[in-house]
């Protein structure tokens, strides 16, 4: 439901970051979304297309990597990945744990830019002599 707000935040952030590379076109935006991020991928993709349509990002692809939930278990001291978010129990020893290490990510990992090739600089007369 809030994917439209999320898509707008991504577009705003990417346009801001891409401004450092004048003339470049954004080909792809790569996201890391935690299993607990509360973002629905299909809904985000739908909103993405709507949001980029009239911006400099038009045509940019969205690559989404889902980050599983990783907890630290204070009872056995180990970190492990949860298979489901229905129960925050250490899969190794079965103890409940509130120590969440990963799984809430809502992050732009990187962007892929396509830049026009740099024109060779004109040689100065001095350089020509050498």
């Amino acid at each position, binding site marked *: *439901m809030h994917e439209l707000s*999320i898509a707008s935040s991504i577009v705003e952030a990417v346009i801001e970051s891409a401004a450092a590379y004048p003339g470049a076109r954004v*080909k792809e935006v790569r996201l890391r979304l935690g299993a*607990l991020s509360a973002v629905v991928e299909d809904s985000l993709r739908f909103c993405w297309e709507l949001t980029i349509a009239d911006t400099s990002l038009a045509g940019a692809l969205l690559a989404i990597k889902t980050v599983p939930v990783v907890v630290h278990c204070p009872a056995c001291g180990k970190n492990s990945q949860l298979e489901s*978010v*229905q*129960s925050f129990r250490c899969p190794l020893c079965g103890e409940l744990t509130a120590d969440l290490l990963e799984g809430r990510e*809502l*992050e732009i990992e990187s962007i892929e830019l396509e*830049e026009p090739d740099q024109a060779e600089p004109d040689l100065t007369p001095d350089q020509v002599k050498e």
Partner: protein
Amino acid sequence: MTTRIVELRRGILKKNDELAAGLRLRFNAAGVLVLNLVSSPGTGKTAFLERTLRELLARGFRAAALVGDLETDNDARRLAASGAPVRQINTHGICHLDAEMISKHLAGWDTVTGANGAELAGLDFLFIENVGNLVCPSSYDLGEKIRVALLSVTEGEDKPLKYPTLFNSADAAVITKIDIAEPCDFDRTLALKNINEIRPGIKIFETSAKTGAGMEEWLAWLAAERAAPERLKS
């Protein structure tokens, strides 16, 4: 054409998070304890908050509320009947509150509370009643110290399992409408177990805004949290 990968490693909601961090500093500096109340529509957030405000004011605390809804100021009018200063935030279709909306609605709050000097200094508690929604508000930090997830006995004991993101992000849980638990066949043990499976060790209150059951414990906890020195550290 050449291709370049630029690493950003940037939070999608970085702007909201930065704004919320600024709000948190302001709240801490003013010594006001801020709570963000989140639940489905119909859980009874407003009735619970109405009673909380009334009881806090009767105990000599200064409490205020910001209330978010898509439309209408009905909730603000209900809450204002408690005597506390209240402001309505209408999101006009947006399904959650964000830090910017909070920031905008705090402007001039001194004149509302009648307090002099530093902003918000006239307050002990500020409650933010979020838009009724168990999904979207979980991603938006409002600068609150305590996020409270509410669940009513009419909603089904498996609500925490269906909405783990929100319940996992909460600092306290409140079960509301316990006065009608019996006709609703509410399985208390199962509800408590489910909340604890999603957010192990969370503080859980069982309340009825109608009869006042459980309110005493909730109010005592609020007062203790307000007084706890670590709560006021920046």
